[in-house]
């Protein structure tokens, strides 16, 4: 089989070698449609690359670290990131590279190209992958074209594409990718035509913009819209818009620019041109025997057909809806910038003010009925912010991912998470808290008397310098006895804090000895030097966005924690009033409301069950080596400290390995004591991984049942390079 085929060479049996998109184009070329100069890179070229570079098994090793269905989306993103990086780094075998170079140069002779995906399994499933695989336009130069071919190949393994394949039951092991190489036709007017209006079968719809189609397709440039009568072939209406922008070719792809004023006043199409485009759509519909959604462009008054596909929106299926959801996981830079403004200027200040207002309210003076109402009010406030967290803050975390991909494309580092070094220079609230804890620890370490008094549990002199600092700390960060996300009772108690301070005081600060990330300033310079002109500004903006996104990924939880702490303090007050009356054995009808409120907020019953896996032979099943995701490079050995409830943290000892379900930002104060981190939740950008990386600690995430398979006191080794945890057996 050949690596490259031209449209007129295509036979029906080639369809599964070039994918539906390419096959459709070949049929249109054969029927005499005016399409741009085109070549198809068959799946055999893809296979020559992945087999020649030993990638097939490597991809499957990545994807089979654990059951796909058990992976969180973030873990799948991590897998996709690692795979994409491998595609970027691996050399294309020489025979294939020479062949591609020769074909591209001889066929397109210096023209810029559109490089589009065309996956055969898209065809086989009868499902649309539109938008899930990558396509690039206006790519210049043979080596850049070959690089972008790799990126289209790699997009077969993007997180969204992987999730979608899983959803519709495709076997990822058999996935292959063909590529359409097409001369960029830099039309001055472009658009789409629906040969049948999805909402009215008697009509044809045309949308048109000035410049390239990209702006219309991704929704950034609003189009003029024509409605035509399907039978009479007449224009029924034309709805002009405020024409402000157009998408034009730039040195590195395309860019959006202001539309020249004379064009903004003129409709992009004449009535006759609209009718010509309508005719084009009819021809495509007649060829494929189904209503078509056709992309077109006009260059020098010649109408080109770019792409035609059946109108899928005529019968929206559940699958298509899900594809839209997967696509929504990725946010555009513009979308993230808008989100940033909302978060930084509105949401965070509102959260801080809400927490402060609640803290200033004296709930002890409320009547029992008022207190019950206050607990409900606080629950609603807390719920509102929890919802905001999911709807606004979590999507904003995508800023880090977007930057990671941008950085990796430019730098091609060995470590696909090298970009994180550039983000860790930001001031995070949790790190400020840990620094304050270090200050308190130094005071305890220096003052023997203070040390002994804390150890003996003697009351604290609030007027002393240490007492004042402790109060400041508690005011700002709480007393460490409250978990952020419920599940444990919140009792105001400074003992857990003091216990940790004592442990830190008797052990040398481990922070100083840890490795520092490599020089971020030089790294930043090297990264920015990859770009010039408007591209450089884009890189600077994206880095800034990623830093904000990274910082907020941690800070938002802390603000949320402060609000939840205020809810919990009201619940605690209610509980203490009810208990006090019950101890006296008296009944007061006003308390009934409070009692029901407490039942609604039953915090304190979420102790995870430890599974004892005794088998029919009477023996135990013991884990020896568990595989997760490598989330922080390094190797360390130590005793396990399994955190099943928040207060388990107070027993944390120096050099232990922190094992938990999910590292909560309000849990990170023990990190300076830890020798490593293991987390059930998977992902490189979850809190455990971020903080571990910040402190240079080995970290493994995504080990299902980590907190039940590992027990406090087990001797374990964390291999953060390979993502494995080894549990030593005492009896061997």
């Amino acid at each position, binding site marked *: 089989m050949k690596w490259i085929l031209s449209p007129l060479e295509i036979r029906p049996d080639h369809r599964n070698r070039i994918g539906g998109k390419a096959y459709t184009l070949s049929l249109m070329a054969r029927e005499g449609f005016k399409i741009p100069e085109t070549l198809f890179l068959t799946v055999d070229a893809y296979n020559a690359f992945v087999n020649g*570079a*030993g*990638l*097939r*098994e*490597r991809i499957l*090793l990545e994807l089979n670290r654990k059951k796909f269905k058990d992976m969180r989306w973030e873990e799948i993103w991590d897998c996709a990131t690692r795979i994409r990086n491998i595609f970027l780094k691996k050399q294309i075998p020489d025979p294939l590279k020479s062949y591609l170079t020769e074909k591209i140069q001889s066929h397109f002779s210096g023209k810029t190209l559109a490089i589009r995906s065309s996956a055969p399994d898209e065809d086989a499933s009868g499902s649309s992958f539109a938008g899930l695989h990558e396509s690039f336009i206006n790519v210049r130069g043979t080596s850049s074209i070959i690089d972008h071919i790799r990126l289209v190949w790699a997009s077969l393994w993007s997180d969204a594409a992987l999730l979608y394949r899983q959803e519709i039951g495709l076997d990822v092991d058999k996935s292959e990718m063909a590529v359409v190489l097409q001369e960029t036709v830099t039309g001055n007017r472009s658009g789409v035509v629906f040969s049948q209006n999805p909402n009215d079968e008697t009509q044809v719809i045309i949308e048109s913009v000035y410049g390239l189609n990209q702006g219309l397709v991704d929704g950034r440039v609003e189009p003029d819209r024509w409605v035509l009568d399907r039978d009479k072939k007449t224009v029924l209406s034309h709805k002009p818009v405020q024409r402000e922008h157009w998408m034009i070719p730039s040195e590195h792809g395309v860019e959006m620019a202001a539309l020249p004023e004379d064009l903004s006043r003129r409709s992009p199409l004449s009535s006759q041109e609209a009718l010509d485009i309508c005719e084009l759509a009819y021809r495509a519909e007649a060829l494929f025997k189904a209503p078509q959604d056709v992309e077109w462009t006009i260059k020098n008054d010649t109408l080109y057909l770019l792409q035609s596909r059946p109108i899928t929106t005529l019968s929206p299926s559940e699958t298509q809806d899900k594809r839209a959801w997967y696509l929504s996981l990725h946010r555009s830079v513009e979308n993230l910038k808008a989100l940033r403004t909302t978060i930084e200027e509105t949401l965070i200040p509102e959260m801080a003010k809400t927490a402060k207002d609640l803290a200033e309210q004296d709930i002890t003076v409320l009547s029992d009925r008022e207190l019950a109402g206050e607990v409900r009010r606080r629950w609603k406030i807390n719920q509102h912010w929890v919802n905001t967290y999911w709807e606004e803050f979590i999507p904003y975390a995508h800023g880090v991912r977007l930057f990671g991909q941008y950085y990796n494309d430019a730098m091609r580092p060995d470590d696909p998470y090298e970009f994180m070094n550039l983000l860790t220079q930001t001031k995070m609230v949790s790190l400020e808290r840990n620094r304050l804890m270090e200050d308190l620890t130094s005071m305890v370490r220096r003052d023997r008397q203070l040390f002994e008094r804390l150890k003996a549990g003697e009351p604290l002199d609030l007027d002393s310098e240490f007492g004042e600092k402790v109060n400041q700390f508690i005011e700002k960060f709480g007393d460490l006895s409250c978990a952020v996300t419920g599940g444990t009772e919140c009792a105001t108690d400074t003992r857990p804090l003091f216990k940790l301070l004592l442990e830190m005081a008797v052990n040398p600060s481990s922070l100083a000895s840890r490795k520092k990330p490599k020089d971020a300033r030089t790294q930043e310079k090297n990264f920015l030097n990859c770009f010039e002109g408007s591209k450089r500004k884009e890189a600077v903006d994206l880095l800034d966005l990623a830093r904000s996104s990274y910082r907020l990924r941690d800070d938002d939880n802390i603000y949320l924690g402060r609000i939840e702490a205020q809810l919990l303090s009201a619940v605690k007050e209610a509980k203490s009033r009810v208990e006090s009356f019950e101890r006296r054995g008296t009944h007061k009808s006003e308390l009934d409301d409070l009692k029901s409120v407490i039942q609604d907020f039953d915090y304190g019953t979420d102790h995870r069950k430890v599974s004892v896996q005794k088998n029919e032979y009477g023996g135990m099943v013991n884990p*020896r*080596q568990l595989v997760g995701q490598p989330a922080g490079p390094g*190797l360390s050995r130590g005793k396990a400290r399994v955190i099943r409830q928040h207060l388990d943290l107070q027993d944390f000892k120096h050099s232990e390995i922190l094992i938990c379900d999910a590292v909560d930002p309000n849990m990170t104060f023990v990190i300076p004591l830890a020798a490593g981190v293991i987390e059930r939740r998977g992902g490189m950008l979850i809190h455990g991984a971020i903080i571990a990386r910040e402190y240079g600690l080995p970290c493994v995430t995504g080990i299902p049942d980590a907190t039940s398979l590992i027990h406090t006191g087990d001797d374990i*080794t964390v*291999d953060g*390079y*390979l993502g*494995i945890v*080894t549990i030593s057996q005492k009896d*061997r």
Partner: protein
Amino acid sequence: MTHYEDIKKHIRELFINQKLAVLSTHHSGQPYASLIAFVGKEDLREIFFVTPRTTRKFENLSTDSRVAVLINSSINVDTDFHEAVSVTALGNAKEINGAEKDEILGLYLTKHPYLEAFATSPTCALIGVKITSYVLVKNFQHVMELSIDQ
């Protein structure tokens, strides 16, 4: 073909066609078997594999370097009993470091390119087993031994 040439041919074929082998180590007399992805040297004098340093096999061979390696061509069908060939290699294992390591890792990754991240992890050790003898079994019960002078 002499017996000697026949044995060498079978061993070479197993080196080329098989990706996995079974390594035997022991801990205080308790044998322990584990699966390894291996590569053999063209001159048949050495076999190489990679293991994390946290594994039992690494711990065991650090205490006693004497090991056995079984390489086998069976494919889990009835005809294996007469068709499959097995070789058990006996020898001494040692971690490979220094200049030699890059060259051998290159050899290893040519055979197992998908193991690049694993094999180059700082937490993994490259182990070489210097072979002292091979025991070749074919046709179900036909056993021949080949000593290798190191």
